């Protein structure tokens, strides 16, 4: 992108605002007692990842982790269906079976959010093999956290990707924490990109607080990946709030948090748009208001949506016309029905 391009930054700002507001509404949904459980991981503070999503093309695929709401929104998710899924409703992306940690949409190339830290990483290697074998131009991107970078499977996946020259990108959202463990208490060398380079990939660490910088780097990494040189990028950011809804982060102090929250890609983009570009505060406020309306609607939609029917639990274990599991009650009936 050309520096000073208002259109692009404005678009990125809009997406980041939609992410921020969506997460705030998820929070509201929880407070109103409407979410399926409390294992909800807010991506507030990580909106800079929008720059990576923007560098992806239609047809590209990706996997995410437990903190993947923002990534999915940036890839085109419908907030209503997301909110419904988070509420465990029938019209959610996964019919109320997956929830926040397992949202997916094959139509948008979302191969699935994963609740196993690192679990979705190797899937992009297989996606890359599919694209290579079928001569498709796509790349597949794995999104995960800094904590996941301590899972051995990441290194197995990176080695295979580099060895086979696959169109794959590994994107580590380094929000400095894995639950209560700061990265420097989880890794001896916190320059994670150096590991990727040692495995033969392109590797960079980018300031996640500057979405334009993220986007530029992602364009470079993605283009190289499309041409058979897989890459790794770490986005430096900060997890603004607790690990999950119920965590109050007692393990870190106010001061650190205040400092960490300064790394705010959304706020930075807004300032930049107003001070160095042609946008006015009013213009952005109008945009923000529209986002508010959109996300409020998503919340109300989810609350109003129907809960899934009880017998749907036996569906989707196997393909539709394959033998289904036998319900325990039917099993008991077969045993006890004949009188003795």
């Amino acid at each position, binding site marked *: 992108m050309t520096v000073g391009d208002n259109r692009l930054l404005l678009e990125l700002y809009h997406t980041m605002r939609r992410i921020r507001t969506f997460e705030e509404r998820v929070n509201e949904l929880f407070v109103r007692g409407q979410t*399926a*459980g*409390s*294992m909800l991981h807010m991506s507030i503070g990580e909106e800079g990842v929008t720059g990576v999503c923007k560098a992806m093309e239609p047809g590209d695929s990706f996997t995410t982790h437990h903190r993947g709401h923002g990534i999915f929104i940036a890839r085109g998710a419908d907030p209503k269906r997301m909110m419904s899924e988070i509420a*465990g*409703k029938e019209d959610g992306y996964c019919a*109320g*079976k*997956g*929830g*926040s*940690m*397992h949202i997916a949409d094959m139509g948008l190339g979302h191969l699935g959010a*994963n*609740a*196993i*830290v*690192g*679990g979705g990483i190797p899937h992009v290697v297989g996606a890359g093999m599919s694209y290579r074998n079928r001569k498709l131009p796509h790349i597949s991107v794995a999104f995960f956290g800094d*904590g*996941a970078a*301590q*899972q*051995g499977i990441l290194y197995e996946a990176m080695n295979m990707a580099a060895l086979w020259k696959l169109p794959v990108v590994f994107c580590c959202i380094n929000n400095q924490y*894995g*639950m*209560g*463990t700061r990265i420097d*208490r*989880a*890794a001896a060398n916190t320059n994670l990109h150096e590991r990727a380079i040692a495995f033969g990939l392109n590797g960079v660490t980018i300031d996640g607080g500057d979405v334009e910088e993220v986007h530029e780097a992602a364009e470079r990494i993605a283009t190289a990946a499309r041409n058979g040189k897989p890459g790794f990028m770490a986005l430096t950011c900060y997890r603004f709030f607790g690990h999950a809804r119920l965590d109050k982060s007692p*393990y870190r102090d106010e001061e650190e948090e205040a400092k960490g929250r300064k790394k705010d890609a959304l706020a930075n983009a807004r300032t930049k748009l107003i001070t160095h570009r042609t946008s006015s505060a009013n213009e952005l406020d109008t945009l923000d208001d529209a986002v508010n309306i959109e996300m409020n609607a998503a919340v109300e939609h989810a609350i109003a949506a129907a*809960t*899934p029917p*009880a017998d*749907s*639990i*036996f569906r989707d*274990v196997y393909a539709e016309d394959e033998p289904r*599991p*036998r*319900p*325990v*009650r039917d*099993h*008991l*009936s077969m*045993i*006890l*029905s004949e*009188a*003795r």
Partner: protein
Amino acid sequence: MEVTYRDALRQALIDAMNEDPTIFVMGEEVGRYGGAYGVTKGLLEMFGENRVVDTPISEPGIIGAAVGAAMTGSRPVAELMYVDFAGLTMDQVANQAAKSRYMFGGQIGVPMVLRTQGGTGRSGAAQHSQSLEAWFTHVPGLRVVMPATVNDAYHLLRMALKCPDPVIFIEHKGLYVKKGEMDVAKPDGNWGKSVIRRVGNDLTIVTYSRMVHESLAAAGILAQNGIEAEVIDIRTLNPLDDETVFASVTKTGRAMVVSEAVMTGGFAAELSARISERCFDYLEEPVVRVAGEDIPIPVSPGLERGAVPTPQLIAETGLWLVKRVAPSWAA
């Protein structure tokens, strides 16, 4: 003393660590965070960083390190945050911890405790709600323990920390806040012994972990219907005390095995098979299993509840088994 299941576990760790300097705790978030479910809260301050070790998110490496520590004079307690993550560690658990003593001709044991927790109840969805004890009970060389009561939480963990072989200690996320009596001087029963939680002559219910409480609730319903169920808590799936079960079934003539794990291939099948093998001449009805549905656990709270046994289901099955009263779903 009335305490929670969580506190009893915590007390067991504290008492054991004070008594045995070779014990140390390691795992994700066991230190500063105090454990995902708060079991190790405060231990870091009490015992320091060498004995309460926060680890990176590296489950295979964590269990592998525990194996090595156990072979070199330490007695590690490795916490696996969710039993659902066992799939990452089964090689270190089943091929290393469980088999080292045997492969090496008895030269050395691996006295480690793998503490973890499982089960439904928090809308944790398919990867945070499983009951995978059957993977472990099929591995010779392991001991497998699943405490249901507060007192067992304390005593079985203390006993596990004296066991010369690897112990898989599986807690239940739905029990942490449960309150009960803890008497550090008096265990519910010995290591390797089943405990009769309720006496009855009409039906034997064999179960463990959270389902002990669901079964006792069901026994209450049954009692109102004139059926006295005997409820047996297996407690230690290995070493398994099935004699207590056989004695009861020989008396009642009817047996139901209750488990939260998916039915097919679950430990309930082993218990059912053993009862039919050994109590054949005394059974008036087939041994039945009331277990989890053969499905992954869905996230929606209503669906999640429908995936595992409830007191209602257990009671209706008991009524059918003993009094031939057709249950709601068959009526």
